[in-house]
């Protein structure tokens, strides 16, 4: 079907551009505000869409007057550890459910899947009492231990889909040659599944980087906060909003996620759509 230029223009380009502007505008705004000096932020005569005198003053305030870098470190620490724990546990579970097909593998898989549907909003209060009893209150370990509750269901689900997509023949051949199941798992399944493990890993990393509710509920000391919590609770003091440093912080804290994302965007899309189709 050949469509005229104008028809394509109005039915495709115009709506597409409107959507892209709508979806990207907040990021532009983050960037724009982070470069503005204080007096420009609060000058209503100037056009706010344009930075008249770009400055790094906000960056300086953020890095030297707050413990932003400490928050970044905390977030990394929690994201990496919880991702590692979840990946390990999910890999074993997904292999067992999808490949070994043991007696209760069906119900087990389903139970893990339902785990993903329980929102943190229901869990954070009982979890808070458990964390309190475990004496992990205000410790980053409370997050390392609770993040796997949403990471494991997600990773297991994603990896089960991946296991389904790779052929069984190689594993069967190795087993005929006398390799044990564990050896097959270690030497054949894991290397074959690296791309799948990888997408599960980057997903898990972003999910824990983004987590908000548990970190807000379980952590109260300034030094132990993660980036999103630190920014929202420490840079707003009473009625004083430090918009410049806030936006700079939002921008910098988005960078690790955006970088991971931009390098592995195909893994993301494949992971998301794969997980949905399963």
């Amino acid at each position, binding site marked *: 079907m050949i469509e005229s230029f104008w028809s394509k223009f109005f039915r495709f380009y115009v709506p597409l551009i409107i959507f892209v502007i709508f979806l990207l505008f907040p990021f532009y705004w983050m960037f724009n505000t982070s470069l503005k000096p204080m007096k420009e932020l609060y000058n209503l005569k100037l056009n706010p869409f344009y930075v008249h005198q770009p400055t790094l003053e906000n960056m300086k305030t953020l890095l030297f007057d707050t413990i932003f870098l400490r928050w970044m470190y905390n977030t990394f620490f929690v994201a990496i550890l919880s991702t590692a724990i979840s990946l390990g546990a999910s890999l074993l579970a997904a292999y067992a459910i999808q490949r070994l097909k043991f*007696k209760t593998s069906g119900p087990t898989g389903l139970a893990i899947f339902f785990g993903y549907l329980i929102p943190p*909003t229901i869990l954070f209060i009982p979890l808070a009492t458990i964390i309190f009893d475990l004496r992990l209150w205000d410790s980053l370990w409370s997050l390392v231990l609770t993040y796997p509750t949403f990471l494991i269901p997600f990773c297991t689900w994603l990896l089960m889909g991946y296991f389904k997509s790779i052929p069984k023949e190689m594993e069967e051949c190795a087993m005929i040659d006398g390799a044990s199941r564990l050896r097959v798992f270690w030497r054949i399944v894991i290397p074959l599944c690296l791309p799948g493990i990888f997408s599960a890993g980057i997903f898990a990393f972003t999910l824990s980087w983004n987590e908000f509710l548990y970190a807000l509920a379980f952590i109260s000391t300034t030094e132990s906060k993660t980036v999103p919590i630190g920014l929202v609770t420490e840079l707003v003091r009473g009625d004083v909003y430090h918009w410049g440093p806030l936006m700079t912080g939002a921008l910098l804290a988005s960078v690790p*996620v955006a970088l991971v994302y931009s390098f592995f965007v195909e893994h993301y899309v494949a992971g998301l759509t794969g997980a949905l189709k399963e």
Partner: protein
Amino acid sequence: MQIQAEERGWLRLRNAFSTLMENRNFLGFLLVIPAEAILFIFLAYPFILGLWLGFTDTVIGRKGDFIGVGNYVSLLKDSTFWLVTYNTFLYTIVAVLFKAILGFVLAIILNRDFKAKGLVRAIILLPWIIPTALSAIVFWWLYDSTFSAISWSLIKMGLINHKIDFLGDPTNARISLIVANVWRGIPFFTIGLLAGLQTIDPTLYEAAAIDGAGSWKRFRRITLPLILPLLAVITTFSTIWTFGDFQLVWVITKGGPANATHLFGTLSFQRAIPGGHFGEGAAISNFILPILVLCVLISFKYLKRED
């Protein structure tokens, strides 16, 4: 002699162990233990504990006593709670509806070949990838009552003559939050539905076009029925997340003005963490459960059908 016997015994044990490791049921059971242990301690147990806490008067730092349906009775008498119930339903229904419609429209727009397809698809997922708390800060700043860029632009265009009080007025605050939620949720719908649209055989459309079906009819009779199961699953997920939403509201309005934007999630947080009333907070968040169960049943039905 004894040493030999010992060695033989050990060997037998090792053989028995490796035979056991070849047993699918045993090995399968063994391999799921780490995942199940974590999920049991930090997911299943708190889930049950949450149901129990709702029937107690637990406050922070002290074990509470069983008080039956006391929390629920006092909540049902609390006008704030009814307002919050209304808010949560309004927020969920309107936001999910807009996310589904706009996400679907964008998926249809993108479901064709054009030059920068990969790039556009990558850009579109950004609102979903970037930490919500951080993008919520941007919305918060955009909704500032004095320095909002939105007000500034509308005034310059001559559409309004005084600044909009985005977060100070109940209706405005609700709309503002829904817009932020829709912004964040569109990508999930679009990318998910796009994957579904790409699996539809294009010859179906060609055949329909030859038979004289217009584009609306093709959408109604081909696209919609084929995409419906996937749309149902995505909508279910989105409904659960939106119904249990917390961070957008907490960052942008903290439930204000006058509780007009409090959801179950934010109200239970407020009563439980700063307020210290764990029992009451748990009771509030337990109101999310019926919707959750309903959604799980729906998604389960559609997932089954696809198998």
